[in-house]
């Protein structure tokens, strides 16, 4: 019974650790998707020149980025924007996203591309930071959690 309890405890701690580290991976994926989105949109502005709403319909998105696209579409149709639904992002990220959503589509193609380049620099910085966090913190969380679980197990034994 004691051993089962110990194994269960280690299992629960590790699940919590993985879900904590998942947040950093989600953030990386989000910024990576956002970077692709901006690059594709840049191409759209250069050649096809589809309207933002039409372009958004074609974006293949998953998880957190899907929420972003839904919110963007909501903003275009109703003028309401609630980016706090994107759980992977923190309060530092939201103003950047808000600025992107509210600025896109307000300029002629040449200036729109220049603006998109500026956004791409910002998003790439954010992506690099998110990746650095992920590479640094994810293994650390797993290792510390494992140590913690083993420590508790030893105490229980």
């Amino acid at each position, binding site marked *: 019974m004691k051993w089962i309890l110990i194994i269960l405890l280690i299992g629960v701690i590790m699940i919590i650790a993985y879900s904590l580290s998942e947040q950093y991976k989600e953030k990386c994926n989000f910024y990576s998707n956002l970077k692709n989105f901006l690059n594709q949109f840049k191409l759209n502005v250069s050649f096809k020149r589809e*309207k933002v*709403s039409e372009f958004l319909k074609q974006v293949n998105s998953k998880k957190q980025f899907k929420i972003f696209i839904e919110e963007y579409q909501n903003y275009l149709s109703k003028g309401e924007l609630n980016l706090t639904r994107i759980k992977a992002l923190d309060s530092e990220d939201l103003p950047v996203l808000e600025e992107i959503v509210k600025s896109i589509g307000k*300029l002629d193609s*040449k200036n729109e591309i220049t603006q998109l380049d500026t956004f791409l620099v910002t998003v790439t910085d954010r992506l690099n930071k998110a990746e650095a966090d992920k590479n640094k913190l994810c293994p650390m969380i797993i290792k510390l959690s494992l140590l913690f679980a083993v420590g508790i197990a030893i105490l229980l034994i």
Partner: protein
Amino acid sequence: MLKEYLSRDVYNLIVKTFSFNDITEIRLRVGERLIVCVKNKKYYLKNDDGEFVIVNKNMLNNFITRASENSIYAYNDNIINGYITLPKGIRVGLTGTVVVENGKVVTIKDFQSANIRIPHIVRNCSLKVYDYIVGEQIKNTLIISPPGAGKTTFLRDLVFQMSEHNCTKNVLIADERNEIANSVNGEPTVILGGFCDIYTNCSKSFAFKNGIRSMCPDVIVTDEIDLDRDLSDLIEATNCGVSIIATIHARDLKDLKRKKGFDKVIDEKIFTRFVLLSNEFGPGTLVGVYDENFNCLMLGE
């Protein structure tokens, strides 16, 4: 019709005050009172407290952003020509600071005003002159009127009537400003009949040169020709045996004759019918129909 583009308050005030079907223009000028044109008369829009609605920069910018569906870059080819075309034939004229690079207009920024022109389909408005234009062969016709006097409405109805009267001629529409067919994603939103091929947002030169080769039209229909710029294309088309129905801005025949390039139109007898419209009793008032020698064939109202 304008619900998605104007702010909710302004839209509600307009529909509360005026019958939407009678509105021909709405003018937004930054810092000035909002003007609504109803049956050729201008009214200032007032709010519920009886105060005039003043247009501010934010109101104008929001309107233009919504009108361009948050995609100014997608409309810039139109904006540099001073307009945006909305669905259902609504035309929005724009003014502001014109940005020029290397002698070429690249965009308009800091918008100062917008003129929302709401079209009205006036069925059968061209019927009175139909027989003077359409017969065994379609006569090369120039529809003349001052701005806002119903040229485009007349032209649309004429094209529609051709199809209604079983005239099976192929009609090529060179819709440079997307005002005739008002196509959205390639589909015309104005009913023009079943014999029309439409070039949207292209230059007249492109439509005339390529259209004749590729679409074999019997007649080319186009709006607002510039005699100085388009004359050679018109001559070329008539030499190919294609008829032309076009419109031009002029107050009357005297105005028309003063236009640069018009002496060649007379010499070459490019047009054999002139239809003169005015605003005298409202848009689309028919003044008369004239032949190539300007003999009056029919007098209007």
